[in-house]
């Protein structure tokens, strides 16, 4: 199936963002936000065509190992060190509809909590076989999956003794530029989630729980990798239609 066949274009405006559900720009417990947060009110507007449209990312651009962080930076015959996991789930919109063709990009620390970045100074070692980035595109039902190793927690300079819980960063590109989202996935059972100032920027506990992926025992592959399931919800959109192309729901 080609990339465009399953993607019937929609042209309605996206639902207004619930700004009380998202973290506020200014969250002083996360110190870097203090000088990087707009202080004036946002200008609220219904979407125009500049926000309801967006580019298409075709499956053909993906390399074979793009969704395999265990191997996509490793030397031939070698693999990244760490707990082997599969992360999978669906990208839906607020109406509960699958979002096919969504571009997902992820990045993370290695099993010891170290990022491959020249500004990173944590004393944990790099893994020569782990780069830390991957990507995939959802299928016609909005499903995605990738393989990786479970990232380690790490300390960061905020408070004297702040640590990030194990997490994977996600960038999600749906069907319109206004749907653009970056978030982080956490792991079920991690007590550090509730101590983290970045997690704590989110005011509503339910919104935090939506970022915690449960262990998916049913999809765990015996003798290979445990599975975590992480569903992502993007903004829904109204069923408004343009005059020149009436389209029902």
């Amino acid at each position, binding site marked *: 199936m080609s990339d465009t066949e399953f993607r019937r*274009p929609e*042209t309605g405006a996206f*639902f207004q963002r619930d*700004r009380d*559900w*998202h*973290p506020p*720009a200014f*969250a002083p417990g*996360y110190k870097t*936000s203090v*000088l*990087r*947060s*707009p202080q*004036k009110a*946002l*200008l*609220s507007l*219904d979407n*125009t065509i*500049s926000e*309801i*449209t*967006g*580019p*298409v*990312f075709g499956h053909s651009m993906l390399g074979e*190992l*793009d969704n395999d962080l265990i191997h996509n*930076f490793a030397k031939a015959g070698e693999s990244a060190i760490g707990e082997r996991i599969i992360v999978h789930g669906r990208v839906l919109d*607020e*109406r*509960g509809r699958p979002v096919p063709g969504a571009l997902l*990009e992820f*990045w993370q620390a290695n099993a010891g909590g170290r*990022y*491959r*970045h020249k*500004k990173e100074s944590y004393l944990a070692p790099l893994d020569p076989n782990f*780069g*830390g*980035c991957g990507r995939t595109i959802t299928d016609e039902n909005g499903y995605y999956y990738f393989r990786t190793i479970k990232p380690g927690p790490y300390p960061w300079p905020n408070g004297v003794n702040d640590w990030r819980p194990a997490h994977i*960063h996600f*960038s*999600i590109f749906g*069907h319109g*530029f206004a749907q653009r989202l*970056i978030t*982080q996935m956490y792991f079920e059972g991690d007590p550090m989630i509730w101590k983290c100032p*970045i*997690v704590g920027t989110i005011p509503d506990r339910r*919104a*935090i729980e*939506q*970022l915690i992926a449960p262990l998916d025992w049913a999809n765990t592959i015996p003798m290979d990798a445990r599975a975590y399931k992480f569903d992502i*919800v993007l*903004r829904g959109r109204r069923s408004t239609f*343009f005059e*020149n192309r009436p389209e029902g729901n």
Partner: protein
Amino acid sequence: MVQDLGYLKETASQTAGPYVHIGLTPNFCGIPGVYERDLGSSMVNDKTLGERITVTGRVIDGAGAPLKDALIEIWQADAAGLYNSPSEMRGAADPNFTGWGRCPTSAEDGTFVFETVRPGRVPFKDGRLMAPHITFWIVARGINIGLHTRLYFPDEVAANAEDPLLARIEHRHRAETLVAGGQAPNYVFDIHLQGEKETVFLDI
């Protein structure tokens, strides 16, 4: 009781963090070979129609320092005012123009650069034409939810004067924060996160 609307809640945003370049522009930040090239690094080719322009700028924090760990994405219409998107119902956009670009701010001085074309005008919901503009989305460490804004052009005075979005800005001097500096073909668009020159950001 009434029926449940059954809507889901949008996944909450979290900051892109200090290492967003690892995920979105790995070749730029020293992780070569995973992808052939960084997505969004080229918007045009030698067949792209329209007037070539560059847009450079910085994202500046409340202490006046440029962000060296930010990532910018832009989205715009082609020279004829059409978006290269399935949701564009008015016609087929230039196939040699993606309309979408992604650029990290540099580790040295925090600048970003886009090589693109001057966008055509696209309609507002009521059919009036908006002034030519480029939509910006900014993420970085310390930014808890991506910031949307727009660039307008300094040499489109008449079109800017009738633009419905610019007209919505109550404090007129703040509309100037959305108008680039420089001149054709090299425009400069500095984004100020705070302060007197704070850019107008959009909840859109």
